[in-house]
């Protein structure tokens, strides 16, 4: 009877309470600890999934070594790592202005892909007919314009009819992919739909092949940081992102800011597309961007939309990617395993934000005892 009563009178087992504030250093300690925990869980997953490791548990060390090896073991790998990071950083920077405005643009993939297409189209049609320098400029303009238009379409609809930007930008990705497929069929009559490397419109390089791209990414990072932090536009973006009502109160034209910011986002995607098209591939496929437009969302988000912190997060993601590739090569596992690892780490990082923002309060034992005594 007593037990039953105690059962009937019960606080919920736990409830969540929002933390008022957490010290910055504490939050970072939590984040670091969580990333470490994520790596440990990755190790466990590897142990379970990779037979080679089960035979010889000491090889688990090799598993972790792969992360280092994948990115830093040779200078070729290091350059490749930096190049991947630079491209990812550029696209991440591109999505950031919109995100700071709480405009959930998940169309960076499409915006970048269309830019690659635009810039390769210029090279395809005009290559050889105009001087190389002019061609490059035209490619650049085409890429930036394409990215901007692709971003402006959903922005205009949002500002005019308040359409859902997330769905809209997502759909635009598919349109971009099929547009590329279409042009590949037109351009490659053989039916293979694979456009060989063009001989025109190569971004000049000095030092190393990838150095220009890496420098551009760095300059862009600093530039965007200044734009967001110190320009009037950047200030307006922050206000609109925080509260549309505050923005209206202070006399900001919210629609104008939305459209302008998306144009900036699109142009940056255009620049990233130009770097991919003219700087690396000199060709276009439906996989030219390879999902980096989506990864960029994670990178930007994890960095709390701060361009400088984004260097860390894009580095971390690139490290994971190169490490994962190394693992599938060294330990001879199939191609899906790297995705598992990236997934686990991201899951932990995102999950930890919840614990930074909320506290879990368990039912106090002492109190339930008190309650029982009170009931009697």
């Amino acid at each position, binding site marked *: 009877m007593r037990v039953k009563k105690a059962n*009937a*009178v*019960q*606080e*919920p087992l736990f*409830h969540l309470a929002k933390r*008022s*504030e957490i010290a910055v250093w504490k939050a970072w300690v939590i984040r670091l600890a969580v990333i470490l925990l994520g790596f440990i869980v990755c190790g466990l997953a590897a142990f379970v999934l990779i037979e080679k490791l089960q035979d010889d548990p000491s090889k688990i060390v090799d598993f972790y070594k792969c992360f280092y090896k994948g990115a830093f073991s040779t200078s070729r790998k290091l350059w490749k790592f930096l190049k991947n990071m630079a491209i990812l950083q550029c696209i991440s920077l591109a999505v950031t202005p919109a995100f700071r405005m709480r405009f959930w643009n998940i169309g960076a993939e499409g915006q970048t892909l269309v830019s690659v297409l635009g810039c390769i189209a210029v090279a395809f049609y005009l290559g050889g007919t105009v001087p190389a320098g002019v061609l490059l400029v035209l490619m650049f303009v085409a890429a930036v314009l394409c990215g901007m238009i692709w971003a402006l379409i959903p922005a205009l609809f949002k500002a005019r009819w308040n359409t859902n930007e997330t769905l809209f930008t997502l759909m635009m990705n598919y349109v971009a992919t099929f547009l590329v497929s279409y042009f590949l069929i037109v351009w490659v009559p053989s039916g293979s739909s694979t456009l060989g490397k063009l001989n025109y419109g190569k971004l000049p390089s000095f030092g190393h092949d990838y150095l220009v791209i890496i420098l551009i990414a760095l300059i862009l990072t600093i530039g965007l940081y200044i734009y967001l932090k*110190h*320009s*009037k*536009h*950047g*200030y*307006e973006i*922050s*206000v609109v992102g*925080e*509260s549309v*009502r*505050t923005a*209206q*109160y*202070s*006399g*900001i*034209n919210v629609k104008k800011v939305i459209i302008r910011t998306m144009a900036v986002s699109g142009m940056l995607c255009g620049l990233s597309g130009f770097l991919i098209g003219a700087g690396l591939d000199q060709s276009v496929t439906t996989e030219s961007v390879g999902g980096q437009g989506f990864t960029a969302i994670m990178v930007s988000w994890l960095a709390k939309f701060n361009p400088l912190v984004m260097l860390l997060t894009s580095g971390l993601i690139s490290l994971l990617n190169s490490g994962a590739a190394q693992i599938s090569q060294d330990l001879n596992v199939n191609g899906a395993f790297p995705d598992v690892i990236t997934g686990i780490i991201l899951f932990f990082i995102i999950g930890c934000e919840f614990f930074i923002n909320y506290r879990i309060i368990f039912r106090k034992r002492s109190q339930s005892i008190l309650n029982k005594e*009170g*009931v009697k």
Partner: protein
Amino acid sequence: MEKSIALSMRGITKRFGSVVANNHVDLDVYQGEILSILGENGCGKTTLMNMIAGIYFPDEGKIYKEGQEVVIRSPKDAFDLKIGMIHQHFKLVDLFTAAENIVLGVKQENAYNLKDVNNRVSEIAQKYGFHIDPRKKIYDMSVSEKQTVEIIKVLYRGADILILDEPTAVLTPQEIERLFNVLKRMKEDGKSIIIITHKLHEVLSVSDRVAILRKGEHIATVETKDATESSLTEMMVGKKITLNIDRSEPKNPQPRLFVKNLNCVDPEGIQVLKDVSFTANGGEILGIAGIAGSGQRELLEAIAGLQPLTGGEIIFHNPKKDQPVTFFHKSLNRVKELASQEAFHDEYGNPISFGGMNNKQIRGWVESGKVLFKEDEVMNLRDKTPLEIRELGVRLSFVPEDRLGMGLVGSMGITDNMMLRSYRKGPAGFVDRKKPRQLADEIIRELEVATPGVNTPVRRLSGGNVQKVLVGREIAFAPKVLMAAYPVRGLDINSSYTIYNLLNKQKEKGVAVIFVGEDLDVLLGLCDRILVINSGKITGLVDARTATKEEIGLMMTQTDTPAKEAVPCV
């Protein structure tokens, strides 16, 4: 008393952070009675009821149903205990019929059969005298029909304690009459009914007992037959407390803002402002009293250019006669525009036109301080955006009710918040943080804002400090009209006095101050005149030095008395 207790609460306390919404409330509900919960907005009525309905969980205290202690963790628990709540904002699926909404979420014992449900709904409706078509879709229904669906939904689940949150707020007088008849029938059927309200005449006409809440505390529960409007008002608003606010006599008040026949309809089609007219004078504090949500917010936002109007005018009167025009609040283009309208003369009274002068020459002339206004400036602010109002040179400051959601940016520091109104200044595309930084330091020093630093996000500051930052910024703008909505809400006594003093200083400077308040003691102690607003209509204008709390309280709550003639303004 022969009636048995249906539900009782003992020592119920609920806190939201540092705010105590309910403080050790004891309350009994009898079987077969209508109990009114009466109190001003924000006194914890709805919070208390939400704890019975399973929306919130009390921090302390116990709830007993028919003498048995119970724990209500969720709305489902509440339904299991036969407690049902009809919320102020209906929770219905628009595309479903009445019957479909009613059965939604009910565990059926036998197969789902809409016909049975329809019959059962009609049965309940008949029993209590509702009029409803179970097959009608929600989107075709009037507000009153939707409410009926909500009530039947609760009855269908077998509730014998019904809580209605402000049920009459959206109804016409005839619909209210009908609702009350239904409630009386339910009472005769042995059900306990709790209605949350702040309308006195309704309380008196329908309920058996009244529980009065004030600032989260249960003041008293009285039999309705022993109560009068004034006795209830007194308990609701509390005894008069003497406040030591230094109130100076208004010096030479000049009409500054004329509001004429403002009408405003909210997005849901409800008229929130009805023919509101008044005049705000410079050198005076005009109080606006009323139950929260009577149209105060819309009124201030309309003046600030944030609320579209369906009718009326807002005329700003700028006492500029023979004053020099400056670029401080007017752009060059605006000055040129005014010149073309022959608005200026020189110190000898000769008209000025800038014909044939280039911008630099015009600038020089204006900056010499010898371009004077011929007449006071009169501007209609209706349908102007906040930016347009500012560009006209109207120095209108607004301290909105929602400090962090509208007046300030919570994630930004004090410096960045200072820029909110002025960041456009300066020629280049970059913001200048130097002056805002100085202003921030000044406000921190002079208003004694407790903050770790100028760049600490204002969200982290306490309510009082947030308000000091906001009011400080709006005053730094050197306003001619200063509007403040609930500027001391949630503030401790010292911070409140800081705000009163600031408002008084503005008044002495000749600013027209409009103060929307909820505490009648403060309104009576601070303001010069008090305008009473009730359901979007002005129901009175009183002299704050002679008016009484009861008088204002009645004007705030009575709906059947005709609006008093507004006192003509000087």
